[in-house]
């Protein structure tokens, strides 16, 4: 997403210029296979528990 991100950042005072943006470290963790495999199981488990609890 590097190209588009740079283009928008070059317009100060535009509404989107006030939005938070991910750091390089955040972007790294988002694609880090070890962390993402852990997140895959963690999120799936969380969703399964929510589904089961959500109706009687």
């Amino acid at each position, binding site marked *: *997403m*590097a*190209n*588009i*991100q740079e*283009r*928008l950042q070059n317009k100060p005072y*535009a*509404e*989107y210029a*006030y*939005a*938070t*943006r*991910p750091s390089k470290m955040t972007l790294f*963790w*988002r*694609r880090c*296979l070890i*962390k*993402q*495999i852990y*997140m*895959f199981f963690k*999120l*799936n488990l*969380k*969703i*399964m528990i*929510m*589904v*089961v*609890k*959500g*109706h*009687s």
Partner: protein
Amino acid sequence: MSKVLVLGAGISGHTAALYLKKILGKKHDVIVVSPNSNYQWVPSNIWVGVGLMEPNEVKFKLAPVYKKQGIIYKQALAKSIHPEGGGETDKPFVKISYVEEAKQGEEEVVEFDYLVNGTGPALNFAGTPGLGPDLFTNSVCTYDHAAHSWKNLEVSLTKMENGEHQTFLIGTGHPMATCQGAAFEYALNIAFEVDKRNLSHLADIIWITNEYELGDFGMGGAYIKRGGYITPTKVFTESVLAEYGIRWIKRAGVQKVEEGKAFYELLDGTYHEQEFDFAMLIPGFTGSKMKAFDKADNDITDKIFVPNGMMRVDADYTPKPYEEWKASDWPEIYQSPEYDFMYASGIAFAPPHTMSKPMKSANGTPITPTPPRTGMPSGVIGKVVAQNISYRIKTGKKDHPHKASMTKQAAACIVSAGYGFTKGQAATMTVSPIVPDWEKYPKYGRDINATVGVIGLAGHWMKLFMHYMFIYKAKAKFGWSIIPE
């Protein structure tokens, strides 16, 4: 022997039909009436819309599945409900009109003991002049719309490869449209595909929405615990859009579309225009256009349905200001208050009010998202309705042991933000409950520990995993019922 008639074979109706047959077995008839010959897994239409999946990968034929399960299937359109019977019969019935080729136009009366209305939304493109795939905008609401969108998107991408600048306008195409999530992920996927081709310098991608703030998604927004702060989904959504280089227009009600130009009104009452080369705008939704008649053939449509065609259920429809809305306004068992053998599930039930605070422009135009009902609550409601009807048939009792209020149910939404086994990503969002309950959770309206908003590759894997898992389940293959909704 009881006859249960299910109208519609979308996520909710199909789920209800499968559970009804599983619980009731051969002793009772389950009949499905749907004009569509295919089941479609709607959440994957986004990938059809960017050319990464073929329509055949998101749909399958319903007839063989129903035949195997012992469900009677009629490819037809339900025209009218007669809950008190009529003519020579006292039994409730629905008049249908066949759409399958062999019987096209043929009408039939289908009697029932219990009815599940799972007809889903009618896409009201006519509600916004110029909107829709037959006119000036695209849609990803169905697999054929999504395939058509991809053809047009391909034209824009080719123009960009030849050095031409393109403006993409994605979002809501009606002041009271819902399904922001689907449009949002389409905008992100377009940005991803444009960037993948190194064409982002030639693209202006604009998100246009009727939300008061980004991240409202028709559910009044949410709060997420992240990085040591409790942040509103506004921050989360703005961050994702900025990261993907998408600018936005919020509080906008699209009034009209012409070739290459959308006309919209803002909440402050001002009118604007936005030019585009490619637009995908979600239409307003209505219920099906079914009529209802009593025994003497008097029109009782107003008693059964609200004016937009969605069915009245056990909700509190008393008009009241936003400040007085309560969790108890929302239905729990989706039963018609007029006829206790009729139920509505999924998008077909009429919500008591919106979840987002109603807003009107300075000119009096309502500009507010209507409540979304994504696949997860639609499936859960379909299952609960099936369980309650089966219980009534088997025991002869009139109570409802199973409940699924949207003020107690949680929902997960996985927003695709790019396709690829190692390079894709998606935003995974969970909220609990779906409808904010400010009495139970006075601080944030929901259980803050159950609310999640994370972006990453895992989200893409989950969306892909769910695509295969839910199509497997919908085909009623071995062990389908142990897969949750």
